[in-house]
C-alpha cells in the first residue's frame, strides 16, 4: 500500500497486470456466457427469461461492491491521506453507476413478463434506485468542485454518509416483505438454486467482477494521467515556459 503511493510505481504495476486481467475476463465471460445462454436449462416457471438473472444478479452485487470499495477508498482519503485512494474512488463511481443502471434495466426487462410491470415500488427496487441517484450525486459533486484536493475530501465525506444505504439495499428483502425474491444464493441451509443454474451464475459473477477490476484499473490510470496533465497545464500557464508546454504535447 505504501509502495503504491508512488503514482509511477502504480502505473507500472497496472500496466503489467492489465493484460492478465483482460485475458482472464475474456476467458471467464466466454465460459460464463456459454453456460448461461446454451448449457443451462430454462426455468420451469420463468422459461428463457431466467437467463436475464446471469447479468442482473452480478450487476446488482457489483453495484453494492463498488460503493463499498468507494467507502474504503474514502477512509483512505480522510484517514490515511493515501494519494491513490481518491483516484480509486473517482474511477469507481461511474463504474458503480453503470452496474447499478444495468441491474435496474435488466430487472425491469425481467419484471415486465414475470410481474406484469416494468417497475414496482418495492423495497429492493426502490433502495437500488436510490443507490443509483447517490452515484450520480457523488459524480455531480466531484464535477462541481474545481480544486482536486478539496473535491477528494468532500466526495469522501458524501460517500461515507451514503454508505448507510448499502445495508438497506442488501437486507431490504429480509426486512420487508417484498415482491423481489429473497436471498436465494447465500443463505442458511444452502442455496435454493439448482447447481445447473448456480454454476453459470458464479461464472458470470466472477467474469463481471473481473471486468469491474479491469475497467477500474484503466480508469485509475486515466485519472492519474489526467491529473498529471492538469498539473502540467497549470504550471505551464503560471510560468509560460516553452519547455513545459512541449512536455504536455508529448503526453
Amino acid at each position, binding site marked *: 500500500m505504501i509502495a503504491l503511493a508512488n503514482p509511477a510505481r502504480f502505473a507500472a504495476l497496472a500496466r503489467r497486470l492489465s493484460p492478465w486481467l483482460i485475458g482472464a475476463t475474456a476467458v471467464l465471460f466466454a465460459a460464463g456466457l456459454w453456460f448461461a445462454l446454451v448449457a443451462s436449462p430454462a426455468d420451469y416457471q420463468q422459461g428463457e427469461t431466467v437467463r436475464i438473472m446471469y447479468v442482473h444478479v452480478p450487476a446488482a452485487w457489483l453495484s453494492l461492491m463498488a460503493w463499498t470499495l468507494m467507502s474504503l477508498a474514502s477512509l483512505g482519503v*480522510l484517514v490515511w491521506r493515501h494519494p491513490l485512494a481518491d483516484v480509486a474512488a473517482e474511477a469507481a463511481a461511474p463504474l458503480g453507476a453503470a452496474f447499478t443502471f444495468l441491474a435496474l434495466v435488466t430487472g425491469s426487462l425481467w419484471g415486465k413478463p414475470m410481474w406484469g410491470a416494468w417497475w414496482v415500488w418495492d423495497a429492493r427496487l*426502490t433502495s437500488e434506485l*436510490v443507490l443509483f*441517484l*447517490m452515484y*450520480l*450525486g457523488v459524480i*455531480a*459533486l466531484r464535477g*462541481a*468542485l474545481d*480544486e482536486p*484536493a*478539496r473535491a477528494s*475530501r*468532500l466526495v*469522501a*465525506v*458524501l460517500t*461515507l*454518509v*451514503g454508505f*448507510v*444505504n448499502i445495508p*438497506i439495499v442488501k437486507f431490504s428483502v429480509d426486512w420487508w416483505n417484498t415482491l423481489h425474491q429473497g436471498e436465494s444464493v447465500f443463505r442458511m441451509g444452502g442455496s435454493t438454486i439448482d447447481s445447473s443454474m448456480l454454476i453459470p451464475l458464479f461464472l458470470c459473477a466472477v467474469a463481471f467482477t473481473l471486468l469491474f477490476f479491469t475497467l477500474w484499473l484503466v480508469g485509475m490510470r486515466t485519472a492519474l494521467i489526467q491529473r498529471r496533465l492538469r498539473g502540467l497545464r497549470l504550471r505551464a500557464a503560471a510560468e509560460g515556459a516553452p519547455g513545459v508546454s512541449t512536455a504536455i504535447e508529448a503526453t
Partner: protein
Amino acid sequence: MTPFLALLRRDLRLAVRAGSGFGLSLLFFVSVVVVTPFALGPDLALLGRIGPAILWLAALLATLIGLDRLFQADYDDGALDLLFAMRLPLPLAVFAKALAHWLVTGLPLVVVSPVLGLLVNANPQAMAATALTLLVGTPALTMLGAIGAALTVGLRRGGLLLPVLVLPLAVPVLIFAVGATEAMAGDGSGFAPAFMLLVGIVLASLVLAPVAAAAALRAAQT
C-alpha cells in the same frame, strides 16, 4: 452565556432582522401546496386521500431549497473561520446553526400545516397526524440538509446540487413519516411501528448528521 446559546441567538437574530429567507421558505411551502391541486385537478376526494403526502413533499422541498444559505453567509464574510476557532466543538456549532435554521423555517411549516390541510380537504385526524409527523420529522430533514449545505458551501451551483445530494438520504424519513400519517389518519393500525422508526431515524440524524456536516466543513477548508 454558553457559546452554544450565543451562536443560536446570533443566528436567530440574523434570520429575523436581516431578512435572509425568514418567511420565504414558508411562502414557498404554501405556494407548492397551492399549486399542486391545479396539477391534480380539484377532485376533493383524491386531494383528501393524498393531502398529507402533498404537505410532506412541499415541506421536504421547502426545507432543502432554503438550506444552501445555512453556511454560505458565514463562508462569504469569514465568520465560518471563527466557528473553527471556537472552543465549542464544531459538530455542536453545526447543530446550533441547524437548530436556529429549523426554528425559523421548519417550525412555521408545522404551525401552518393544519390550515393548509383545509385546502387539500384533509380530515381533522389527518391534519393532526401531519402536524405531528412534520414536527418530529422536519428536524431530521434540516440536519440531513446541513450535510448537503456543508458539502456545497462556496459552490456557485450549490443551490441545485444540495437537493440532488440530500433527497436520496431523505427518502427513509419521507417513507416512515407519510406511513405514520396515513396510519393515524386511517384506522390507526400500523401507526406505532412507522412512527417509532421515524423517531429512530430522527434521533440518529440529530447525532450523526452534525458530525458528518462538521467533517465536510473541515474538508472544504483548504
